[in-house]
């Protein structure tokens, strides 16, 4: 290094040490990540001091952590200093109705067959749409409000219900849980918050649509759902992302607290941009989702249909702490072209008579790799715990891979754990049979795949199931000759 370079280096790093000012009026943070960026985000959102401290603690921990390398996925090293960690959409005014939603966003919804208005009218879904980290539309708030249900953006919840947020934030997924949860905890921009009061049965499906909007903007969503004693809620999460050439990082955290006698159903249809046919571009989807059945007889059910993202790393999990509590995981993961998915669940049995059920359907096509990774952990005091796991893989073609990594740890000999796994290929017989009835090969595959996934699709709310079926077909388009 020349002397000039040395001086330059010293100078730049000194400036770094002292921190540099960030324009608070800016709608976008500069690229990169350091404590000032964390402070910027927190200041942008007028957050209380405790939350800033919480973020900073997470950030410092993140610096010490290392990126996980155990998932069965490969991708270029992510340069975390080359990412913009905060950007607000240009329009931030409050929307009175769905008509005021960005037309471009609605177009994307329509491509997917989701019409916000129709949803609102026909299905009574309250929609909290998140465009690039800031909520722009919240509906049905009043109806929900009458029941005492809180359903708002995360930022609003921090302002309006700081005690609830403070009590539960990080209680299920600690800020320091893993590399990406630490990153999320430090820089999360917004997300959804939901609280169902004691004994309340939420009368409608709560739904949030996410979308990545600006180029080079990592999305760090934070969702917190609290179901108080004896309550019930069904929550839907769906994602769409427009086509991008550059890889985009998505590292969300979802935490769910299920109290005694309460039940939460969490359904996801994930359709982030998967990259093109040659594996260029696409979203990196590194998500931490976990719920706790904290009280007796609590029930938590995850249902996911994963069709998008270039790389997926995601294990929605249940901690079954309360006695007689139940955890369920129903998953369809489809990969095509060069997509990679490493997904599954963890069922941690702590309470007595706890039950869990895992149904995983992996479909791989093209050159993709699809892994199921699941842990069933029965602790010492979990008397009479039960688990049933079923992992089925369906292969299209000869270049793709399906992998299963089941981990079972049993420390109580009253446990009953069952695991079944199958791998099959779509048979030429099946396709010919369809062809002979006039059904073309593309449609035949869609039929066969939907049939294979039926058990999981049936767990989705009606309107989501229809959308999911379309997605499966769309994802596998062109996957056979």
């Amino acid at each position, binding site marked *: 290094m020349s002397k000039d370079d040395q001086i330059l280096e010293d100078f730049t790093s000194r400036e770094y040490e002292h921190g540099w000012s960030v324009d608070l009026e800016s709608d976008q943070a500069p690229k990169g990540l350091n404590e000032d960026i964390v402070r910027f985000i927190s200041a942008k959102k007028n957050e209380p001091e405790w939350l800033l401290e919480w973020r900073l603690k997470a950030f410092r921990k993140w610096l010490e952590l290392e990126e996980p390398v155990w998932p069965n996925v490969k991708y270029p090293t992510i340069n975390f200093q080359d990412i913009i960690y905060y950007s607000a959409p240009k329009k931030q005014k409050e929307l009175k109705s769905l008509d005021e939603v960005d037309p471009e966003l609605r177009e994307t919804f329509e491509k997917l067959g989701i019409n916000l208005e129709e949803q609102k009218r026909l299905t009574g879904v309250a929609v909290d749409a998140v465009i690039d980290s800031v909520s722009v539309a919240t509906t049905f708030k009043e109806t929900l409000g009458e029941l005492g249900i809180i359903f708002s953006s995360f930022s609003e919840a921090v302002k309006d219900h700081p005690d609830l947020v403070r009590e539960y934030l990080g209680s299920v997924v600690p800020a320091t849980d893993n590399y990406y949860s630490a990153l999320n905890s430090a820089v999360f921009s917004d997300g959804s918050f939901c609280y169902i009061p004691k004994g309340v049965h939420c009368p409608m499906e709560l739904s949030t649509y996410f979308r990545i909007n600006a180029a080079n903007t990592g999305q760090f969503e934070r969702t917190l759902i609290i179901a108080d004693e004896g309550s019930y809620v069904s929550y839907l999460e769906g994602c769409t992302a427009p086509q991008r050439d550059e890889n985009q990082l998505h590292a969300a955290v979802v935490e769910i607290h299920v109290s005694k006698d309460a039940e939460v159903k969490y359904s996801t249809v994930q359709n982030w941009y998967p990259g093109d046919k040659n594996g260029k571009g696409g979203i990196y989807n590194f998500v931490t989702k976990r719920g706790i059945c904290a009280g007796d007889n609590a029930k938590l059910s995850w249902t996911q249909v994963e069709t998008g993202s270039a790389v997926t790393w995601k294990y929605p999990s249940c901690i079954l702490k309360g006695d007689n509590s139940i955890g369920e995981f129903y998953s369809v993961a489809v990969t095509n072209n060069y997509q990679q998915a490493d997904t599954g669940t963890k069922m941690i049995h702590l309470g007595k008579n706890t039950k869990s059920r895992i149904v995983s359907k992996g479909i791989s096509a093209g050159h993709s790799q699809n892994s199921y990774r699941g842990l069933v952990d029965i602790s010492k005091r979990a008397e009479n715990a039960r688990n049933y796991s079923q992992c089925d893989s369906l292969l299209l073609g000869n270049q793709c891979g399906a992998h299963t990594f089941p981990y079972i740890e049993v420390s109580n000999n009253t446990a009953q754990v069952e695991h079944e796994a199958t791998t099959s290929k779509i048979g030429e017989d099946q396709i010919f049979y369809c062809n*002979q009835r*006039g059904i073309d090969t593309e449609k035949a595959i869609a039929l066969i795949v939907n049939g294979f996934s039926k058990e999981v699709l049936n767990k989705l709310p009606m309107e989501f199931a229809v959308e999911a079926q379309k997605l499966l077909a769309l994802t596998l388009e062109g996957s056979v000759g």
Partner: protein
Amino acid sequence: MLKIENLKASVDGTPILNGINLEVRPGEVHAIMGPNGSGKSTLAAVLAGREEYDVDGGSVLFQGNSLLDLSPEDRARSGIFLAFQYPVEIPGVSTTNFLKAAVNQVRSYRGLEELDAVNFLKEMKEKMKIVDIDQSLLRRSLNEGFSGGEKKRNEIFQMAMLEPKLAILDETDSGLDIDALRIVANGVNILKSEENATIVITHYQRLLDYIVPDFVHVLYKGRLVKSGGKELAMELEERGYDWIKDEENHITA
């Protein structure tokens, strides 16, 4: 309607059909009989367009067009129906959903409007009577866990829904008890008209008591070696295939 000339086909280099000639006119029922391994199912598969078989020569005209140039789905859409000897299971897909996809793709190929759910169900209800099929069966996964009789009845039900010009029944009688055989044959007879034709492939004369053929052909070593009326089937039932084999081997020797 169907004109097969000198059709030759092989699988993995082994010749199976060695020059088939056959003409089928509207309103006719043809029976193709023959011992095991004579090429009966291959003929059905080649007509339906199964990819594993290589066509090595000859031509097939169906309603004036070259059938062999069409994809399997287009053959089906233009009116060829194959009732499978071993109907294929498709887990998680009900017969209803399967048929809805099929009927609508066939209809749009024929320039007809797709049927909506209401009209489709109406159509189904009507056609269900033909083979005395129960609605609960149509809700189950296609052919999964079906008995032999249920599978074959379901094939004929699909045929009723798709209204083919030419139906090829590949050993539809195999695995059927006498009651199921009667129901299936009765369904085929109801569907018979002056506009459509049927090719019945079978080992045994038994089926032909119920579906009476206008012509009977004997397939042996990949060729139709003998043709006649329905009395030929009776003769085969009585005497077996050996005399035909002897005749044939004598000629070729």
